[in-house]
């Protein structure tokens, strides 16, 4: 947005009703590609962390939540770039009508709340399409909109478990209770959401028809594990936990370099790569010609790991990387998400980090975008995440043509606002309603 160059989705207005990752990251990517994404929030229930976090709480600039913690929460600000924020109390008639007015001027509505949330607001697809017949409307619950789990709660880590991915990751010599929790499936659902919405837009351009999209987060991730499900059926061998190793190639691993917690990943897949590695390491025990066969290398993997670790332990990880890449060996430094990422010469040359200036949280080097279009001519616009209700007036006045009086009334009646109500971070509007009573 705000770019002179027309981006792929510049003509599109999308309404986002989402929190945590799957929906917000979907909206983030739509915004990166030029769509006007309006995040529908409310002061009755916020998804921006606690209203009164303890002083020194992590996740805020300088560990200071400040007077408006909801506008300074780092996770929220990181993945809600390139959006507008409108607060509406959808439990009121006026709030609901405003949303419907907005729908009549929008192309896309998407929601990653539980399946029944929209229905309970009176905003099911059937109801919304009466306002805008060609609307593209997507629900993206964990397990899809039907079936025995349709109403189940889920999160990224739950999808990771139920799809079999959790079963296969981890150290082979430890059991699953030492596994981390991985929320990667949320991000997969987000990109699948973008894919589904974009293809529905192509279809609408061709036929004039809108769409109801039922997207399952679990099924989205399962398409990334397809060969594993096939292996199971095609052979009798069952895949077990591999750690960083591979059953057919050796050596494969992550090896310690000089310094504190510095590592390099090395993957040998061919005999040529093995021969090059032998030459670089120049250790007598590797000269054994039996090791030229991958079967022998697999049997002696522990010994090979020891020799490689001894070699890497005295080397700077980037020096090791340069040596290995020069020898055409697949290798990569283990970079962290802090200093290493920001210092990475490659990410920097490709302008991966963009400085944004957030009105409440200050300067921040934002990550992304993950898509580069030639037609953008190298221009990347990252607007900071919106403050709560930041665009209320603009949207109600300019877009919906409401009078100043109406907007004032909305503010007085707490249909819109920029400050969350007490309790709105603790499970929603029902609690607020109780407090009002």
């Amino acid at each position, binding site marked *: 947005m705000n770019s002179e160059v027309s981006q792929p989705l510049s003509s599109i207005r999308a309404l986002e009703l989402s929190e945590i990752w799957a929906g917000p990251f979907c909206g983030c990517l739509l915004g990166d590609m030029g769509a006007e994404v309006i995040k529908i929030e409310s002061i009755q229930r916020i998804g921006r962390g606690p209203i009164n976090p303890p002083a020194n709480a992590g996740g805020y600039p300088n560990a200071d939540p400040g007077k408006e913690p909801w506008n300074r929460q780092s996770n929220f600000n990181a993945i809600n770039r390139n959006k507008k924020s409108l607060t509406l109390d959808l439990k009121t008639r006026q709030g609901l009508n405003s949303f419907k007015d907005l729908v009549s001027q929008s192309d896309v509505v998407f929601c990653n709340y539980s399946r029944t949330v929209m229905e309970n607001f009176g905003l099911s697809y059937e109801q919304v399409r009466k306002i805008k017949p060609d609307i593209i409307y997507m629900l993206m619950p964990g397990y899809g*909109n039907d079936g025995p789990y349709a109403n189940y709660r889920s999160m990224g*880590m739950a999808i990771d478990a139920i799809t079999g991915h959790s079963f296969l990751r981890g150290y082979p010599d430890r059991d699953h209770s030492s596994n981390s929790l991985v929320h990667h499936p949320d991000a997969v659902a987000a990109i699948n959401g973008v894919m589904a919405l974009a293809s529905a837009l192509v*279809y609408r351009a061709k036929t004039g028809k809108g769409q109801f999209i039922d997207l399952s987060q679990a099924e989205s991730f399962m398409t990334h594990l397809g060969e594993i499900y096939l292996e199971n059926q095609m052979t009798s061998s069952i895949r077990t936990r591999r750690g960083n190793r591979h059953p057919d190639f050796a050596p494969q691993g992550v090896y310690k370099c000089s310094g504190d917690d510095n590592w390099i990943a090395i993957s040998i897949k061919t005999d040529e790569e093995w021969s090059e590695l032998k030459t670089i390491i120049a250790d007598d025990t590797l000269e054994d010609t039996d090791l030229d066969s991958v079967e022998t290398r697999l049997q002696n993997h522990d010994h090979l790991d020891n020799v490689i670790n001894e070699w890497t332990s005295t080397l700077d990880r980037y020096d090791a990387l340069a040596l290995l890449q020069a020898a055409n060996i697949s290798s990569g430094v283990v970079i962290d998400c802090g200093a290493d990422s920001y210092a990475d010469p490659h990410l920097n040359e490709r302008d991966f980090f963009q400085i944004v200036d957030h009105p409440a949280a200050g300067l921040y080097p934002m990550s992304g975008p993950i898509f580069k279009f030639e037609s953008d001519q190298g221009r990347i616009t990252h607007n900071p995440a919106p403050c709560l209700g930041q665009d209320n007036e603009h949207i109600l006045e300019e877009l919906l043509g409401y009078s100043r009086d109406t907007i004032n009334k909305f503010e007085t009646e707490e249909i819109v606002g920029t400050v969350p109500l007490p309790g709105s971070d603790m499970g929603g509007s029902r609690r607020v309603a109780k407090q009002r009573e």
Partner: protein
Amino acid sequence: MPYGALEEIIVLDLSDRLAASFCAKTLGLYGCEVVKVEPLSGDPLRKWTNSNPGNQSGDSPLFLHLNAGKKSITINLDDPKGQSILAALMKVCDVVVETQKPGHLDKIGLAYNQIKKSNPSVIFTSITPYGQTGPYKNFHYDELTLFAMTGAMYREGLPDREPLRYSGEIAQYFAGNAAAAATTAALFKRTLTGHGDWLDISIQECMAGHPHQIGRRSPFIYAGEPDPRSQPRTSASGAREPYAVGTFRCKDGYFSFLPLGPRMWPNIAKMINREDLMADPKYNDTIKRSENRENLEAIFQAWVDDKTREEIFQAVQAAGVPGSPILQPEEVHKNEQFQARGFFQNVDHPNGQTLRMTGDPFRFSNAPTSSIKAAPKLSQNTNEVLRKLLELSDDQIEILAMENII
């Protein structure tokens, strides 16, 4: 007549690595006609050893999954005549998906800047490990080494051990899927402007720009702290009912839990039938529950111990605590939810085997998608595609075959 959302779009799939191949496959799920161009010897992934020795069909499980529903043609691209056939196909297609080393296609006159002269509306999607520019653009890679360079690996595993990769080929799948989404956005813009585009997708950037990694950058920016590997019962944001966070052994396997903060304590206490603990001064606030974490973890583990995954799954749903059983891969396609949705489809393969394959993760009200088809045999569709797209005659095709061009 059902009409796929992207029907009538022709995708030329030049991939020989996973990410680009999955990008083309995803476009196919939404209705594109995907023509896979292989060398005469076949896509190297047909023999990829992620397959197993016991597999009789010849093609690897990875290839069968990535290429389900595609058409296969073979062209010898070392021969100038082969290159000109590919150029002719690029002229009539809507999307090209490729994964050559940056600069390689320029040498044979088939790069975007050369193709767009004859096909200005083509969407040209290049997917490479590190993108088209920058010092790492020619780096040798595979899933393990690329995953290390995204920031995702550093945080995985235990503090006193080496960092860990995910299982599967996660980074490459993620980037291929993201590339398909961006390609479709470019197709949408094309419906309005008629203009094509060139997408430069870096697998490293897709994973480095992923919410997991984005979220982990703020502790460094705001406090100068890295975000190191941690013990499983802790979470990055500090105590969130840590005694019940992570993966626990149960009666018939393992179960993962993630309570969302202190407000879940009553839900948990009720779920494990220990509401008495709520009045216990050892446990009545977040800090005390963190201090007495080991006791509480033992109590929680005792509740988990004698229950099956299914019993716990029912209990967490009733209590509103996020959690899920860890299924083994062979259990997944028998799961009642995925069966009820018809997600896995039975697909007949040429060797006589019927395989349960993953289907569409989406349902469209107006644009049903067709059923999943088996991956093509090598060159299965060469004649058909050349007749249809290039209007070659049978005689012309026969001559090309005799000359080992196709």
